[in-house]
């Protein structure tokens, strides 16, 4: 459920069912999770937040570690790593 939480500010769209939406979100989330271009942008966010004093150096490092790990995971193969 963590993948779904807060990822999209998707209001209740009228037509599709919840399951369909959740599946789409999951697809996109997974795609985004390992997309190097997305990770690159997220790294930039971390830098900005750190620079503006909104997160601590420790938090920044932890976030960066996780993002870089995703880059590595993407290289070796997504699941079952």
């Amino acid at each position, binding site marked *: 459920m963590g993948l779904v939480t807060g990822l999209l500010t998707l*209001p*209740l*769209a*009228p037509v599709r069912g919840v399951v369909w939406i959740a599946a789409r979100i999951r697809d996109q989330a997974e795609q985004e999770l390992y997309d190097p*271009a997305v990770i*690159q*942008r997220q790294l*930039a966010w971390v830098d900005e937040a750190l620079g503006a004093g909104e997160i601590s150096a420790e938090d920044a*490092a932890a976030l*960066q*570690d996780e993002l*870089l790990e995703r*880059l*590595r995971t993407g*290289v*070796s193969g997504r699941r079952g790593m």
Partner: protein
Amino acid sequence: MTAQSHVEEPEGDLGNGTLCYVYGIVPSDIDMPEGLSGTDGNEPALVRHGDVAAVVSTVNVDRPLGTREDLLAHERVVESLAARTTVLPMRFGAVMATADAVIDELMAPYHDWFADVLADLAGRVEFIIAGTYVRDTVLREVIMANPEAMRLRENVRRLSADAGYYERIRLGELIVQALEGMRETDNAALAEAMAPYAVAVAPRQPVGDDAAADVAFLVSDAGRERFEAAVEDLGDRWAGRVRLRLIGPLAPYDFVPPAPEEVASWDS
């Protein structure tokens, strides 16, 4: 050209059979900075061959390369050297089997080419200028210039989140498209504005929703002050619409020429 055929003993603690992480190529007549910490905390050393040298350190490869520490180590070593000499920087992750292989397969065959490139890059540094849009300013521009965007915006304001859902998507899409066009224009404008102050210009790919521009410049030591003053002026002119960020001086990552087609033939 006469081949520099004598093999120098590698400096530092590199025996045969030790994997070598290669950071870059430098002129051979330099001294390494003291106490530098590279990948895995190992101290880099020079593998000299004739007029050029490779900067290497031992590396442990029972794990994928690319932790924060790995990246920072690479950058630290390259930039420490760039502060004192010309560096032809490697892309991250170059590992060779042995120090001998570094000489036999890298330094010897390409010695003259490396020497030429180092000569070209001598006395020159890289700067990167990145621009970010001031969001409200460009959003206004987009909406004012686009009647459909204006109409959608008004609808979106009126309608609830549910009812206006598809309008929001469409409006967002329009904005993103408009920004893409703006980005192209502004990136070119940045390159053009600063080109007179640089030896070479290499546009890059701006990353991010609000990215406006991302361009690398090769600047001579002599021209550096004028270049930096010009960036300040540009920052002033673009204030309120684009925020500029200047990164550098850096080793010339964006100005490494493509590899030669074939190994130069030697005459003795």
